[in-house]
């Protein structure tokens, strides 16, 4: 089935080839492979960008194809990051604690070990007890399961309540924003159990690989991100092709008509919303070990709005558009805000891009919406003629 699907979808093949080429170039040019043409920090940036592309593809499916303007998908991204971060932090702290306790003559009791790890991790928020949500933090497989289950479960419950009540359009967008805001405000509290505004840090150090250089670790994460993007892209391209795609696009264009055809629209929305939330969680779980730190500010409502902006600029309703939008805008954003762009001296005023980048982004968003509603991806329509 997948084979036939790849044959009939040229854009998927082109995308996979482009992704493979890009990945190979970066991998062979990286410091880990000895060439040293691509610095480790650049490998990390590109790897993180691939994760952002993956969540953008998910956003495109939920918004561009199904017409649900979710402004909360970054919450699922953040939850994925937190879930994997908890294990990273716990296992690394455990390693440190164990080696320092080894010096003692009497072997430490499990309670002592747990206490020592707890005060290491939660000292910053004035506590040493493990909150309930850390119950599985000692186990990597369980925490990886959480990466998928927690966003999926949250999306399932939220979506069920919202879609069942037939909340649509801008009201749904507001609800998703409220969900994101509530989550980030909750995480900002010290007694949330996730270290409040300190967040989780040191995530770039992978327990068990203390001797491995960051160059190698970053390359592995880069490759994993590329693989995740490739698989996620094929999965979503398969979902939106065929009859499922017909129904999902039908819901976007005329929900009532789909209902009268006998399809339970709520079930379809819930499926798309939950599936994209799960993929967002996976993207987050790959992103934050490369970023090294996660804190509640990452989940702030504005992040999910940026996500919608990327997809709109890249082009809604085409998956490669979302990838282009996310890659271009997020890379440009870090170039402009990171001081990469030279200031423009107008004589009477000096344009500093760290301040003016948001204005530029806002303007380009308005221009794209007004003049190029198909986004950057729409340019491909001029190059490639549609097979009839």
């Amino acid at each position: 089935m997948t084979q036939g699907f790849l044959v009939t979808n040229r854009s998927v093949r082109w995308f996979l080839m482009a992704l493979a080429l890009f990945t190979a170039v970066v991998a062979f040019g990286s410091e880990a492979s000895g060439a040293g043409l691509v610095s480790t920090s650049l490998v990390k940036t590109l790897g993180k960008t691939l994760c952002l592309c993956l969540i953008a593809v998910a956003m495109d499916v939920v918004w561009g194809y199904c017409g649900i303007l979710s402004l909360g998908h970054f919450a699922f991204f953040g939850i994925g990051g937190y879930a994997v971060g908890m294990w990273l932090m716990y296992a690394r702290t455990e390693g440190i604690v164990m080696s320092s306790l080894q010096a003692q003559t009497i072997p430490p009791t499990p309670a002592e070990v747990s206490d020592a790890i707890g005060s290491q991790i939660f000292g910053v928020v004035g506590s040493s007890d493990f909150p309930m949500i850390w119950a599985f933090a000692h186990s990597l497989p369980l925490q990886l399961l959480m990466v998928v289950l927690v966003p999926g479960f949250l999306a399932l419950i939220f979506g069920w309540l919202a879609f069942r009540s037939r909340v649509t359009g801008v009201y749904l967008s507001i609800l998703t924003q409220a969900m994101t805001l509530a989550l980030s405000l909750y995480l900002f509290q010290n007694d949330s159990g996730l270290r409040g505004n300190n967040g989780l840090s040191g995530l770039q150090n992978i327990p068990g690989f203390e001797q491995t250089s960051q160059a190698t670790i970053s390359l592995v994460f880069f490759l994993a991100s590329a693989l995740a993007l490739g698989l996620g892209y094929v999965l979503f391209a398969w979902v939106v092709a065929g009859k499922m795609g017909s129904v999902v696009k039908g819901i976007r264009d005329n929900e009532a008509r789909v209902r009268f055809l006998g399809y339970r629209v709520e079930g379809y929305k819930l499926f798309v919303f939950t599936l994209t939330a799960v993929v967002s969680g996976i993207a987050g779980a790959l992103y934050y070990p490369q970023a090294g730190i996660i804190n509640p500010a990452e989940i702030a409502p504005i992040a999910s709005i940026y996500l919608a902006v990327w997809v709109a600029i890249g082009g809604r309703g085409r998956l490669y558009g979302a990838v282009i939008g996310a890659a271009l805008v997020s890379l440009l954003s870090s170039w402009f805000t990171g001081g990469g762009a030279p200031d423009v001296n107008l004589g009477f005023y000096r344009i500093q891009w760290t301040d003016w980048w948001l204005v530029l982004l806002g303007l380009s968003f308005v221009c794209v919406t007004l003049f190029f509603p198909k986004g950057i991806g729409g340019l491909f329509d001029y190059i490639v003629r549609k097979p009839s």
Partner: protein
Amino acid sequence: MSSLLEVSGVSKTFDGFRAINDLSIQINEPELRAIIGPNGAGKTTFMDIVTGKTKPDVGRVVWGERNESLLGLSEAEIANKGIGRKFQKPTVFEDQTVRQNLAMALKNPRGPFAVLFHRKTEEGAARIEEIAAEIGLSDQLTRTAGELSHGQKQWLEIGMLLAQDPRLLLVDEPAAGMTAEEREKTTDILRRAAQTRAVVVVEHDMEFVRRLDCKVTVLHEGHVLAEGSLDHVTADPMVIDVYLGRSDA
């Protein structure tokens, strides 16, 4: 002939306006029925109630041999019982091809996972060809629905109804905005469909109703004013007074 749909004693009030007032209509299978009436007579509300879009304040809507109540079912559940609805404005999925539009309507399992793993069958393809021939769009299957003419969109929507293979078709003003020739073709499609199923046509246009040559129900202020052949109802002094007299004057 047995009763397929029985609407009895139904009333519906919107913000104090009585859209439907103690309405009772019985539809048999097979049957072709025209429902006429001036604007605000409650024709569309009647369809909304039968298809589950609107819940009535009082009354019963009973379906099929087993006399099931349709009240409390969702739109999708009612559609799957075998009631298809065509809207006044042609509503086809303009971004998708004629074939995709018909394929979506074809009678198949409707759950998300069944649809996700759905594979095209020869049987389904043959059925699509058959329906396309019936509605005269055989050579348009690969075209995007948005490119079709107004009349073709109306036919496509009727075709989507047929693809659902319903026992009852509710058709809202199928001839609106059509040329004389297109109307004739539409009449033919509807009359053929009514040979095996129940077809209810809501229409303004008397000429079109005359061509359908079927039993007519006249609605007025949410109530059945008269019922019978077109000649019978148009001779009714009350009908002339509230509807024909006004619109033809």
